[in-house]
């Protein structure tokens, strides 16, 4: 076997493993190919599946007056997409407008009640655990991935590596840049603190959608 074939094969097996492990951690993984397809997927998710209900999750439960008040601050359906290139943001925004959804790239602090979808790019995918690595020094990006109901994360297939140790050097670079913030994200937010029953979405997203793109 030639060297390049070997590399290709090991890349393929990292990709397969990434998909398998991410799914095992309750992420939804779809190979969409292009950015345009990712946008369609996201709008479709917002329209046809449970996301983008007017009320964010938990707001239909009996709450204390203060918690109710925070719920009330969310008035429309919103997709938050900080840190996209301007071309990409425009494309997403125009399609959101067509569908009557709000689309923002900043101002997350006034959206703490929750946004419907956080739309981001992952920096590395770790095959061994199905983990996304998100370098997110900017707080808009961090908040978009935390206060959203659904997190949609695009990942270039070329960015998938075998295990965390293969990402070590890149992490070192992130962290040596001065102030930095990096997150490993594997599946949705979860807890088992009540009777050890696995429950999704305690603080962060209720669903994690990983969209694989070519580049």
């Amino acid at each position, binding site marked *: 076997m030639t060297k390049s074939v070997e590399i290709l094969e090991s890349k393929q097996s990292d990709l397969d493993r990434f998909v398998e492990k991410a799914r095992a951690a309750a992420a939804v993984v779809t190979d969409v190919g292009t950015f345009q397809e990712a946008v369609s997927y996201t709008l479709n998710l917002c329209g046809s599946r449970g996301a983008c209900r007017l009320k964010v999750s938990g707001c239909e439960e009996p*709450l204390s007056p203060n918690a109710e008040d925070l719920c009330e601050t969310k008035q429309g359906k919103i997709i938050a997409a900080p840190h996209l290139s301007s071309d990409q943001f425009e494309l997403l925004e125009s399609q959101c407008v067509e569908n009557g959804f709000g689309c923002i790239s900043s101002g997350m602090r006034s959206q703490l009640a929750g946004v419907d979808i956080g739309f981001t790019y992952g920096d590395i995918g770790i095959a061994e655990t199905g983990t996304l690595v998100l370098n997110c020094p900017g707080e808009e990006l*961090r908040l978009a991935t935390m206060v959203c109901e659904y997190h949609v994360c695009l990942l270039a297939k070329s960015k998938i590596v075998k295990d965390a140790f293969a990402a070590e050097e890149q992490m070192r670079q992130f*962290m040596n840049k*001065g102030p930095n*913030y990096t997150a490993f994200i594997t599946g949705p937010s979860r807890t088992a603190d009540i009777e050890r029953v696995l429950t999704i979405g305690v603080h962060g997203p209720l669903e994690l959608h990983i969209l694989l793109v070519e580049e």
Partner: protein
Amino acid sequence: MQEAKSLKNYRKECRDSLGNDYLRKALDAFAVAYRKSRANAFAEFDVEELIGDVVAMKDDALQQLDALYDQFKEKAEGAGVTVHYAKDAAEANAIISRIAKETDCKKVIKSKSMTAEETLLNHVLEDDGLEVTESDLGEWIIQLRHEGPSHMVMPAIHLSRYQVQDLFSDVTGTRQTDDIEKLVKVARRELRQKFAEADMGISGANFAVAETGTIGIVTNEGNARLVTTLPRVHVALMGIDKLVPTIGDALRILKVLTRNATAQAITSYVTWVTGANECETSPGRKKDIHFVFLDNGRREMAADPLFSQVFRCVRCGACANVCPVYRLVGGHTMGHIYIGAIGLILSYFYHGPDSARNLVQNCINCEACKDICAGGIDLPRLIKAVHARIQDEEGHPIPSLLLGMIMKNRKLFHTLLRTAKWAQKPVAGDDGFMRHLPMIFFKDHDFKALPTVAEKPFRDLWPKLKPAIKNPRYRVGLFSGCVQDFVYPEQMVAAVELFADHDVEMSFPMKQSCCGLPLQMMAEMKTSRDVALQNLRAFEKENVDYIVTLCASCASHLKHNYPELLKDDLKLKDKVAAFTSKVIDMSSFVHDVLQVRAEDFQGDGKKVTFHAPCHLCRGLGVHDAPRNLMKTAGMDYQEAAEAEVCCGFGGTYSAKFPELSRQLLEKKLDNVEATGADILFTDCPGCVMQLRGGMKKRGSTIEVKHTVEGLAERRKKK
């Protein structure tokens, strides 16, 4: 939090915990599920190797702790963090309280930190007038209930959904349902608003990476991401033991940590925070960020040759998950703030002898924790060592001293055992069980029938019994241990018959005494050493290939603890090594050395099962030998559920905590009965005593025997 003032009160607390049915059921289910899912989580890996990596790295980090701290501080401060060092809990709390005042914070949101539990930080902040909210769901629940955690990873594992339902009804002022999913959503909304309001976030840290000045925080809920992002001030409190050299080192710990803690390949989130990162609401849009390192007894521990290994603890909580005592009484009783095996040790160093005095006695020495520890820490040994320290500092209790005095003198000890035979005469039945319990020792022991001391100990039978072997294959020295010598000599006789069939020449050095484990269990270390030396001397002149014992506890103690006990006498080093390398348990000897075959036995197809003594399966790592032997000897072997969980004997433990011992026994017997076996075999006379007594008390027809008896009885007559 366990705070009993006396052992008597502590025992009462244990009894009260035993009465909590929900807790018992929850922890039982957890213990069983955990073992299975942990095995799955590690399935692709060599666990020993992964743990070995952590051990090597942590030991190395400890050697250069000061340098790591300096490096971390330089890097972190270079990126805009203020790094603080606190020598004890009060100092750490004062630092954080000062930061809150200086930055004019009013509301604090916290993510989970055992270190903040350790310093009781919340009390101090609340006294300062701050509103403090825990954001980890479990922590929030126990905070609202004004309780401490009952598990290091799952702090509210002791509570039912109904208790949470009532609690949340109070908090929201509206009636909640008992639907867990809905309760979690309520917490999501209630806490989101707390996040939005907070001006200070307090987190712990799982790693402090020196090369970059980064902290790593491991969570499933993602609350640490909000705690470290939303408030304008962030304080992270961590022990100095969290320092690691590189990111790779943190990743190595992570790989074991989550798999060992919750059987997850990784948690949903791992958050890496470096420097004064962006924060919209801080002046200059830079987070006001402080890392507080805590000593609080850690350096004292690190300087101690025995206790320094505690530094390897990664706080996975697994030592509680597998502890049979934790499973019975839960974390509020099996811990002060830190819980389970590690809790018994840390309580002494972090919170002083008062918090540890009673706790350290509540270990049955089953070694389940040691077997699973992510840091490869010899937890049971350290628990005993803490116990010994406290006794040395405060004086030894009388029964413990007496036992020590008696045991130091083998002749006196043996004479007492012989006279016990007469003392029990009026109350012994003809079936080998005592009707009443004459010995003060055993006053709470009525849950199992106790055996009587044998008419003639094995040492008296030996001179007549010793077989003449013409062409010996092996020469073996027999080590009987006190129970087989004086209570169950028939087990020794069975072994002699079996071995003789296979041309094993045997000797029985008369000067051997108790192995010394009971002394170790009562933390009588000095006498334990004396007895070890006597035994070493007794076998010194014997020219034998193996020293065989039928008692798994003796074998593991002789093999693993003697080198430690006798290590100060350098002249003995070679002798000890020669001695310990010869020690082997009966099943391994018969299975691995004699390699008996099916043709050697007359099988009868009896349905049998096995209880694996702690010191056999974990102490010696022997799993298959006894089970294979039963099959080889033609029996129908049925594996019982939880065959490798402690039977509750634990030597002197069953005298100190009879109620707990009893519960462990009941569970064991249920599992055995469920197999439908006629005979229960085990490889330890102590376990035989516990199990046979328990069966007798139940009126069960299941026979309890030593494995060697089962083998000897099925020998093909030559």
